[in-house]
């Protein structure tokens, strides 16, 4: 289990570079990273459903300007991995596992946001160094600062994923057997309401707006 978690965390942290740092070819969106992580954990369909639901809910998260966008990838990875692992030992139905995975991963979003702010502050430091190396005409070290930033972001994601997924197993082992049956079954049924929320988000995204209000 520990090796699988390390492997998943590593792959997920490299793909998560796509959120803001590198490429931005959208491989970090829930609809892509959900099925991928699900497949790596051994349940492709599970990841596909998870990815689709979270993609609907966060369909309109905009990485605008200087604000820090919501990290949909981080939540999707933790939710998918922990809920697939939950389903492998607890036979409580796929829908309930998916909803429990989301319940667990959602509050962790604030932690990844804090880590993100820390990395961006550290990037200020890297830029000071880059200024210094520019004065020395040292092109090699300026580029090394960029590589440093990328490595730092990978480390950030790796630690977050590994700890969150592993901790999730313990949390589920402790909490799930103690929850009353109607809560667990009710959470499984609540998937319908979650999808309704996602579709309301899509509606809000495409609703008619007064022309000229944006852009």
């Amino acid at each position, binding site marked *: 289990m520990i090796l699988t978690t390390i492997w998943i965390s590593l792959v997920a942290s490299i793909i998560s570079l796509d959120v*803001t740092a590198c490429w931005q070819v959208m491989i970090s969106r829930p*609809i892509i990273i959900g099925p991928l992580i699900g497949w790596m954990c051994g349940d492709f369909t599970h990841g596909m459903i998870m990815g689709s639901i979270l993609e609907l809910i966060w369909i309109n998260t905009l*990485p605008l300007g*200087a604000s820090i966008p919501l990290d949909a990838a981080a939540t999707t990875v933790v939710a998918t991995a922990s809920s697939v692992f939950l389903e492998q030992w607890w036979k409580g139905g796929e829908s309930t596992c998916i909803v429990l995975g989301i319940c667990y991963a959602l509050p962790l979003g604030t932690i990844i946001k804090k880590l993100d702010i820390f990395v961006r502050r550290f990037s200020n430091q890297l830029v000071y160094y880059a200024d210094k190396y520019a004065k020395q005409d040292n*092109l090699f070290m*300026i580029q090394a600062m960029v590589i440093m930033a990328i490595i730092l972001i990978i480390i950030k994601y790796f630690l977050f994923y590994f700890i969150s997924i592993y901790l999730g197993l313990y949390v589920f082992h402790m909490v799930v057997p103690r929850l009353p049956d*109607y*809560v667990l079954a009710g*959470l499984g049924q609540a998937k319908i309401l*979650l999808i309704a929320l996602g579709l309301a988000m899509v509606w809000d995204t495409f609703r008619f707006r007064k022309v000229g209000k944006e852009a």
Partner: protein
Amino acid sequence: MVNTEKRAITKLDLIKIMHRSFYIQAVWNFERLQNLGFLFTVVPMIKRLYKKGPARIEALHRNLEFFNTHPYMASFVIGVTTSLEEKMVNQPGTVKPEDIRSIKAIMSGPLAAIGDAFFWASLRPFSALIGILMILTLEGHARLIGPVFFLFFFNLFGLYIRFGGIAKGYNLGTGVVEILKKFDTQDLITVINLLGLIGLGVLIILYASDLRIWQNIVFFGTLLMMYGLIRKKVNTNILIYGALALGVVLYYLKVIL
């Protein structure tokens, strides 16, 4: 306005710059945003135009100044900057450093607005919606077509702008501003939004047809209520937990089974 004078930057340099432009946000920082990423992107240009020395140091500092725009639309600015830097070296006196500074500042605002409205707020949600529609309608491994479509369709536009923007910006120099002025995405966005609403309708009908009658009532009730709350700008996490709590309560009251 095509520049016909002899050019120092080779095709290979441009390809290297295109490749590096994918890392423009790698050192995103609170102070000067994409500045170091921008310099990293144009390193092949600096290597081609300058030898070690005071001129290169000046060029490094010039390209380390504050910069921020949409990561795809930045390609136009990268192209224009490359073209102007080259002109400044090849024909001394025609271009001043301030010109480069001001063209970067003038272009980045409007380009960010276009990129945010078209790529982030319109094309990506639309591509994702169609992808999810495919996942819902297809069976078994064929459902993979959904995510693949999303990646392919969205990046078709994205990569075209990212590669084409650098090429156009470099070939036309400041002339690219005239082209961008005529660039009207508003109609395209309206069409995409309309298609998105149609897609949403199809998705709702397909999903609701699999539900039982009571589930249907709960589903549509929640949809309308959530839409109202979203318009009131209620926090998304609160809405998610709210939906789950409501689901448990309704199940406990035996409304949905």
